[in-house]
């Protein structure tokens, strides 16, 4: 591997890391900040991807599909929070695990009924459907770079929302002491509904803009679910900064692992997680 290819692999690793952050961002919010264990995170990712596929083949444009699909997923998130999740905040985590595991099965079945069991491809928007030549035989897809940009924007936005705004303060306060926040006259129920819906919409949004890269297929949610939890756990529960750092670490470790030690590439992420947890049991940026 000469220097030019080393740089390209570095770019691959960072780009993959940003992608991981995007996919895990919804979980960071719902699990990391609100403390709800949401095993159905991957299902919302899948719903987003299938919506992107069906709406873009209907409208002929991925952008239009995303604009149409986001309100739908926000409504879905609010509905689920009102109907189901609201009743479990005070309960043991096990109840949330049971509920969200059940939701995985329900969403898979619904997906099969509505959209069928086939694999589908989603076209990259024409404007971004180009490649930048890097060497004489390798080019970089513009769409991947564009997604990286979106990921950075999202990360900055999330960080700002949680750390710098009044709403973010209420969310953080609510997560650590719900009753106290309520007795201060803040409508914590509404805030939870909104934040939960935002988390679901983020998961679905990740599925939508990732659809042209990953294609759309049954069980695609279960593939991202585990890595999302790894991101949140390595980064430290409750930290957007930590999730970003963890995503980049994993991205780089996987990329170079596949190239340098292909025999054990599948283990590297989990070894990394084990090492981080031995060193800092609360995660990189966790609240000890």
């Amino acid at each position: 591997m000469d220097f030019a290819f080393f740089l390209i692999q570095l770019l691959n690793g960072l780009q993959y890391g940003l992608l991981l952050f995007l996919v895990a961002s919804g979980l960071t919010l719902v699990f990391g900040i609100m403390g709800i264990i949401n095993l159905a995170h991957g299902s919302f990712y899948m719903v987003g991807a299938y919506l992107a596929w069906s709406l873009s083949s209907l409208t002929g444009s991925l952008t239009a599909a995303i604009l149409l699909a986001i309100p739908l997923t926000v409504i879905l998130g609010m509905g689920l929070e009102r109907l189901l999740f609201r009743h479990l905040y005070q309960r043991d985590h096990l109840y949330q695990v049971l509920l969200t595991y059940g939701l995985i099965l329900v969403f898979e079945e619904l997906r099969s009924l509505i959209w069928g069991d086939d694999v589908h491809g989603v076209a990259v928007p024409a404007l971004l459907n180009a490649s930048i030549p890097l060497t004489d035989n390798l080019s970089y897809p513009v769409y991947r770079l564009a997604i990286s940009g979106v990921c950075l924007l999202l990360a900055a936005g999330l960080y700002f929302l949680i750390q710098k705004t009044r709403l973010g303060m209420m969310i953080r306060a609510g997560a650590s002491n719900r009753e106290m926040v309520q007795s201060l006259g803040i409508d914590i129920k509404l805030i939870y509904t909104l934040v939960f819906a935002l988390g679901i919409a983020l998961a679905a949004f990740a599925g939508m803009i990732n659809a042209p890269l990953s294609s759309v297929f049954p069980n695609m949610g279960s593939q991202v679910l585990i890595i999302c939890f790894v991101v949140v756990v390595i980064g430290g529960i409750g930290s957007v900064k930590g999730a970003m750092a963890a995503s980049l670490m994993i991205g780089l470790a996987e990329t170079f692992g596949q190239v340098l030690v292909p025999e054990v590439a599948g283990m590297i992420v989990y070894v990394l997680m084990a090492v981080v947890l031995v060193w800092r049991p609360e995660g990189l940026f966790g609240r000890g």
Partner: protein
Amino acid sequence: MHKNEKIGYDRREFLKGGTAIAGATAAGVLLPAGIARAQQAKLKIGMMLPATGTFAPLGLAITNGFKLAVAERGGKLGGREIEYFTVDDESNPAKAPENVNKLVQRDKVDVVIGTVHSGVVMGMAKVLRESGTLWINPNGGAGAMTGAMCSPNFFRTSFSNWQTTYALGKVLKAKGHKNAVFITWKYAGGEEMMQGFKEGFEKEGGKLTKELYLPFPQVEFQALLTEIASIRPDAVVAFFAGGGQVKFLKDYQAAGLKGKIPLYGSGFLTEDLEASGDAAEGVETTLHYGDGLDTKKNNAFRLAYAKAFKLQPDVYAVQGYDAGQLLAAGLDAVKGNVGNKSAMIKAMESAKIDSPRGPWTLSKSHNPVQDMYLRKVVGKENKVQGVAWKALADPALGCKA
């Protein structure tokens, strides 16, 4: 549906017993006896295939193909009517022993047909080896099943993983490629296909420069595509399936490698041309079937299948159809008497199957000895370019049969 039939049967048997005790009229004795004979003659076939999940369409194609073969014989095999018992294997290897036991222990089937996923096939093996039930596998290509684990009651009508890539060595050599890189998932199926290619290519004097593996079932190919660009091989050979194949083809194109380093693979790489779009264009693969195979048998098969199921058949439908044909050959030889297992196995071993893919016979280890076709993606079709290897037989390593 078969449950209702069974209830009906039980009631009739009960009535028969009642009439016998009563010593009733001639008509009363004749009627139940007639029904009883027909019931006894029904052949019990257990279909263990995926009905849900990623592989559900494959399970359906195999079932359709099998039923078409039966329908062509007037709905009977070896002169016997058929009763189907179905189990959804969910492509879950962990549940394989339990699922196949439902067919063997509970339903007491005469023959088992299954399945798609290689891991599930391996899980079924122990149970079926012990029960000795006749077993036809219409897909899963695990090499061991017709290798070290081969057994007299096991037959395969599809392929071994090794077969699907071995002929590529000759193809690459003919194109003037001296070295190649193989990329696949790190799991048994992928490694067997890699092995098949390596053997075939090295025999022709080619060199496999590097084996690239991705953890199963990951689809983030970017790092390995960069690696391919830095190695600059003459050719790339790939195996991916399901969601992975489409993504690989698209990423290969997006990375700018398409057109610079030619791509080859086992035929499964280009089985979903609808989703792959123009990313698959020009990719050449080897497989034991091609949709556009212009033979009398294939044309007749495709027409009959399309008429019966309002669907276009694929390679899986062909494998299911041939499972029906192979079973028919065995049952015809013993006139439907499954009890005469050794004669039946003998007849199946020497059967010459007139398949839509072309005629084939079985090897000693019960795997098809078949022509491997070279196909090239043109538009939305795998166009057959010719025969890459005439009558290719799996080496059946470790089979002592």
